[in-house]
């Protein structure tokens, strides 16, 4: 019984994906030409038979390596992307710049809970960081992209022990925020059943899928052909395919 409950909880979390577009972006009133990617924030832990252990080193690596992957995906959508603004010497030397960036990250975290629970409210224009986002006006962005990644890597023994929930996972949440008004223009979330800490390119197809609706909404500028969800979300090798994997694949092919 307990395992069943855990199974259901994990399953519901795993399939908790969404892509929601603000009506102004959908209607073409807003158009995003230039995106600045805010510093990615990641948390990874290792789940072993002796409990959980933080993987801060790997999380730091992921923070650095995920940014260019996301930038690459967005560039293919005909959007200009600045993924180096926060890796510059100016960022290191100017405390005001760092404080402002951290303040905006804190503001984003303050709405992230509601954003995750009620993503559809993006359509009502409910979420905003306020006009303080304009403090990063010198970056000349149309939109700022906030990224949160959190995941677990299971050791071999833990995978056997946790069967059928024996998958590494990474939960991605991304929001595009209007760089003048602070309004959330686009929000997407998805849990990827892969270990992407070794090679974030493993998540590239999933990230492409996360921006599928954005690509469509942003005035049809998408150059890449949106790929089918069933091809991108769950990279479970055939030999490991289990009932869970089948169920998850079913869910992923359903559009919300």
């Amino acid at each position, binding site marked *: *019984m*307990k*395992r069943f409950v*855990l199974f259901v909880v994990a399953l519901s979390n795993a399939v908790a994906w969404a892509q929601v577009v603000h009506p102004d972006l959908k209607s073409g009133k807003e158009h995003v030409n230039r995106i600045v990617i805010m*510093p990615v*924030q990641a948390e990874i*832990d290792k*789940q072993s*038979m*002796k*409990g*959980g*252990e*933080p*993987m*801060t*080193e790997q*999380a*730091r690596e992921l*923070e650095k390596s995920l940014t260019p992957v996301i930038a690459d995906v967005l560039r293919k959508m005909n959007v200009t992307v600045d993924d180096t603004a926060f890796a510059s010497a100016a960022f290191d030397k100017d*405390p*005001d*710049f*760092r*404080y*402002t*960036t*951290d*303040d905006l*990250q*804190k*503001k984003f975290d*303050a*709405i992230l*809970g*509601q954003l995750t629970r009620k993503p559809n409210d993006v359509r009502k224009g*409910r*979420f*905003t960081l*306020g*006009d*303080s986002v*304009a*403090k990063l*006006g*010198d970056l000349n962005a149309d939109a700022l992209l906030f990224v949160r990644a959190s995941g677990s890597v299971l050791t071999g023994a833990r995978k056997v*022990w*946790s069967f059928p929930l024996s998958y590494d996972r990474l939960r991605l949440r991304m929001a595009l925020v209007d760089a*003048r008004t602070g309004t959330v223009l686009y929000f997407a979330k998805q849990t990827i059943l892969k270990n992407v800490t070794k090679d974030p390119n493993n998540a590239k197809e999933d990230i492409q899928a996360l921006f599928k609706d954005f690509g469509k909404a942003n005035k049809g500028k998408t150059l890449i052909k949106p790929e089918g969800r069933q091809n991108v979300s769950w990279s479970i090798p055939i030999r490991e395919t289990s009932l869970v994997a089948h169920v998850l694949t079913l869910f992923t092919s359903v559009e919300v």
Partner: protein
Amino acid sequence: MTSPSKYLLAALLVCGSAVAIAQEPAGCPQRSGAELVSPKPEVENFKFSKPDLQLLRQVDALDQQIADHGLLYVDPEVEAYIQRIGCSVVPAHVPEHVMWRFRVLRDPVPNAFALANGSVYINTGMLSRLENEAQLAGVLAHEVTHVVNRHTYRSFNDMRRKYVMMDVFEAATSAAPLAGANYPAMLALGNVVPLAVVQTTFGYRRELEHEADDYAVRLLYKAGYDPKQMAHALDLLRHGPEVDLSVRPIFWADHPRLETRVKDTTVLADQLQGQGDTGRLEDAAYMAATKNAIRHDANLDLLLGRPRSALAIAKRLISFEPRNAENYALLGEAYRALGGRAPEPSPEELTSKGKDEARRNLQKLTPAEYEKALLTRPGGLEQWHVNSASAERAFAQALELDSKNPAAHRGLGFLYQDEDRPADAIAQLKSYLELAPEARDAHQVELRIKSLQQNAAAKKSATEGPQ
């Protein structure tokens, strides 16, 4: 089985009350002479195992991550002061794999924490709550004890051992029904026992907290500070300007109750201190050294919807420096941010019902929606008028002290915008831009002026009607 680990994980890297980063490692100057307090024998014989060294690497990475995320408060004067006080309470012998670094974290929560590698972080929220140097030394001594006595490694290893026990127990209870055991009973056991085991882990951590408090009081005494200030510092954490909406967890409390800690540290301080024997406090030196960090903390409070804390800090800074225009500008911002709140919590807000309602609203509403909801409560709008008037007076006072204070002009501009006085708002915001053209928020202010001008023009044409 994954749920207990989730909670344990958060507590793992950090010992003490909270967390943080860094610029370049400073370390502490070599100190000679006798140790302030001797470490326990089991600590002196501590040997690093492979998991301990792995944990150390993760802890070093956390230091870097804190810096990467821009969470550090950077002010050479404050940093040097914190480092100096921290170094005054560390032992002469530097433990293996420890480099003493004391840093300030941009976080309004009153907290401090230590990492196993000797990085000690104190939040700006803690600095703004403390009253004197002795209390600061007490808090840092508490965190130093966590490092010296290897608390992170000890609780890490304790947790690992217990986690294996939980796994074994779960396997046994899962298999027992197959062998004919009562299924509901086994299910109940399978759920309760892991929680009980986790509880013992936190119980162990509570012991370590007591140990850190005990050492801190002794260190304060040996360093010539008033040892009672440790108890006072803990007592200051019990009551803040905001309504305390935290819910004390039943199972996951890894710190002893504050009341108990205050009592225990007071008793110990009394034992150490003879009658009429008083130690150093250094309250003026403390305020002089930390005032910028404290003012910075008030701005974080404003950012994160804690205007009552910001107000309390502004008043404290004014009493310390009554001729400083910045302090009055901060006071004005705090009153403006109060919105529909009273400066002090009302009796209703402090009831369980009031707290439940606030928790519900904070969970359901975005910060902007929450502020709006406060205005629609009975008396909310009236309170907003009162607060706005207080804010205007404070800004005016700031300008009286320094007519070229940019923050006061900006505050007035935003206040007048809230009060739907576009012409006054535009004038004040333009003054701000003239005085601080290079300010980071200059673009934000320009956009506000533009928006105010557009709204005013639209209003005018609507009033005049079609020609």
